[in-house]
């Protein structure tokens, strides 16, 4: 049922290869930077890095239009950047600044950019399946040829919404693409501990959905598989399941003690399969050492600029906390949601600006 695709570089593909490489390098630089700034205390909350998995984000998003939708996961920096979000908006968000793409209210696990069809990272594992089924259904209802892509991990495939939404998309023939980043682990559990099967793609057969298994370290292979899937989806052929075999080279989150695997395993995989090294090798003469170095330099400059932007941006105003849950809650004249401001007052019934900087121990 699932067939393995392999990709080969053709001469005319070198531009594409360089574009994919550029995206992967930008993701790598962004995430190494996030790691550094997280450890330095600049970034609050949780952060999950996709280092090692960049080929999936780059290969997939290179096939998508800006008006196509993606839904991402807790490990979403790569998807977000690849879909077209600016580093400035992302880094400012991670730094919890008012200029962040979500005004500092989302953070790494809840980053979104609707201007490029990025429907959000998701703090809930498997939270994206419904959003993608809905975006695909919406394309049908609105009679467009948009597609919707769901990124998700192996762990997410054990949750109910995976099952329900894949079946729904299959039976309704929706223009959805399910891109599994099978990185062998769901936090501390290996896939062998949480499922008896080797290839998750076999589950697609249970929905009557075509599937492919690809080398997820090979951005070309991903790109080609997504190409087939988008062609099918845009022409009314329905959804496709693409299992990308990949690997997470960092801890589950920044700070993970990683008691569940040997350091050696990581080194082995990255030595053999680092998607950036792989692409550089594949491109061979099509990209000289200077050009390769320039990609890194540009990415580092872009990141440095984003950090500077974030640092010079203000934190949100404290009262921002109380706005934004409802359309209408900012306009005092809104007859419906004005009542919300009453609740806001009631929460601190007597002293709305009480005690800031003087709240005691922070218990």
């Amino acid at each position, binding site marked *: 049922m699932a067939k393995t695709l392999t990709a080969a570089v053709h001469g005319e593909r070198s531009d594409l290869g360089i574009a994919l490489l550029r995206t992967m390098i930008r993701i790598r630089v962004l995430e190494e930077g996030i790691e550094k700034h997280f450890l330095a205390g600049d970034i609050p909350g949780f952060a999950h890095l996709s280092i090692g998995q960049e080929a999936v984000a780059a290969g997939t998003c290179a096939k998508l239009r800006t008006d196509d939708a993606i839904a991402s996961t807790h490990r979403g920096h790569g998807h977000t950047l690849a879909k077209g979000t600016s580093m400035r908006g992302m880094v400012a968000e991670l730094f919890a600044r008012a200029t962040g*793409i979500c005004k500092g209210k989302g953070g790494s696990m809840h980053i979104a950019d*609707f201007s490029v069809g990025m429907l959000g990272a998701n*703090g809930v594992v498997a939270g994206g399946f*419904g959003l993608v089924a*809905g975006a695909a*259904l919406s394309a049908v209802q609105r009679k467009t040829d948009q597609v919707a892509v769901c990124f998700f991990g192996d762990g997410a495939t054990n949750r109910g919404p995976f099952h329900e939404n894949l079946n*729904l998309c299959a039976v309704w023939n929706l223009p959805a693409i399910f891109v599994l980043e099978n990185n062998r682990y769901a936090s501390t559990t290996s896939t062998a501990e949480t499922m008896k099967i080797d290839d998750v793609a076999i589950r697609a057969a249970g929905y009557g959905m075509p599937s492919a298994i690809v080398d997820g370290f090979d951005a070309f292979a991903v790109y080609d598989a997504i190409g087939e899937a988008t062609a099918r989806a845009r022409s009314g052929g329905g959804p496709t399941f693409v299992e990308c075999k990949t690997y997470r080279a960092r801890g589950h989150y920044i700070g993970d003690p990683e008691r569940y695997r040997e350091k050696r395993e990581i080194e082995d995989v990255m030595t053999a399969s680092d998607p950036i090294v792989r692409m550089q090798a594949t491109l061979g003469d099509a990209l000289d050492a200077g050009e390769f170095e320039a990609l890194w330099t540009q990415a580092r400059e872009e990141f440095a600029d984003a950090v500077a932007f974030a640092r010079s941006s203000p934190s949100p105003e404290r009262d921002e906390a109380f706005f934004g*849950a409802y359309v209408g809650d900012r306009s005092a004249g809104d007859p419906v949601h004005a009542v*919300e401001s009453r609740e806001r007052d009631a929460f601190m019934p007597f002293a709305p600006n009480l005690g800031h900087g003087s709240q005691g121990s922070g218990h």
Partner: protein
Amino acid sequence: MSRTITFTEATLEAMREEMRRDPTVFLMGEDIAKQGGIFGQFRGLPQEFGFDRVRDTPISEAALVGAGVGAALTGCRPVVDMHFADFITCAMDEVVNQAAKLRYMFGEQCIVPMTLRAPDGITKSAGSQHSQALEGWFVHTPGLEVVIPADAEDAKGLLKAAIRSDNPTLYFEHKMLFPQKGPVPDDDDFVVPIGKAKTMRDGEDVAIVTYGITVGRAIEAATLLEAEGIRATVINLRTVWPLDYDAIADAVARTHRVVVAHEAVRVGGVGAEIASFIGEHCFDELDAPVLRLGAAHVPVPFAPVLQEAMYPRAAMIADAARRLVRRDV
């Protein structure tokens, strides 16, 4: 100008009008298209709008609500039917962690104009798993609007308002109300504003603050009381979030005695929010404790004699009001 139609027909008019008005409105749910809904509340719609806009679905509540959110994020106004309100539990993450939160946590980049229709309440020995009234959970969940019609007029006006709202809106409709008839204005643009209560009856001795099916019971109670010379105000909240705190405060100021009643479980219900709001903001206006009535703290039993014993009906509401007026509390 108004016509007398059933609650069901009122919801059908609302959907027909909104679907004609806005091509991005579509409906999905179990057994809604071919069958027309368990209560006939979708009958005729696929014939007018096609089976693409009125979709029978697999039994996949989590996917339906999840897909509703996804469609709402991307330019549609989906109406998702939950079959029975009890099954909203099967899609709770989608309602609470997705629909309710996305706008806020994404910094207002998006709207989620989804309507969830959820037939609820106690009737006909449907038993524990098909009888719940769960609005209390959603009042406690920031990001959602919750509307609960009490009659045909509300049914039409609130459903239209829910569909037009840019916020995710839960529309709880009591199963016993579907066949009930009432007047509905003849205006295609008649909408009941979300967040505004309606005074069903005016009286200065006591106020009964309620919503949904219990409004009818409260009016019945008011009629019983009237025969004894007690004049009761009956407030139909229509929306339970955002609450019309002004209307409540106003009723307290006029009557100084309040009964709050609903069919949902009394403990931790919407009535607790209302009663404690009154205690906080109308303390000096109160001549007596605010009395809350609601279902007993048990699942809904099957046997009719048990079922009828455990939620507030007209006589019980009247009794509470009477004792408040007689200061027999």
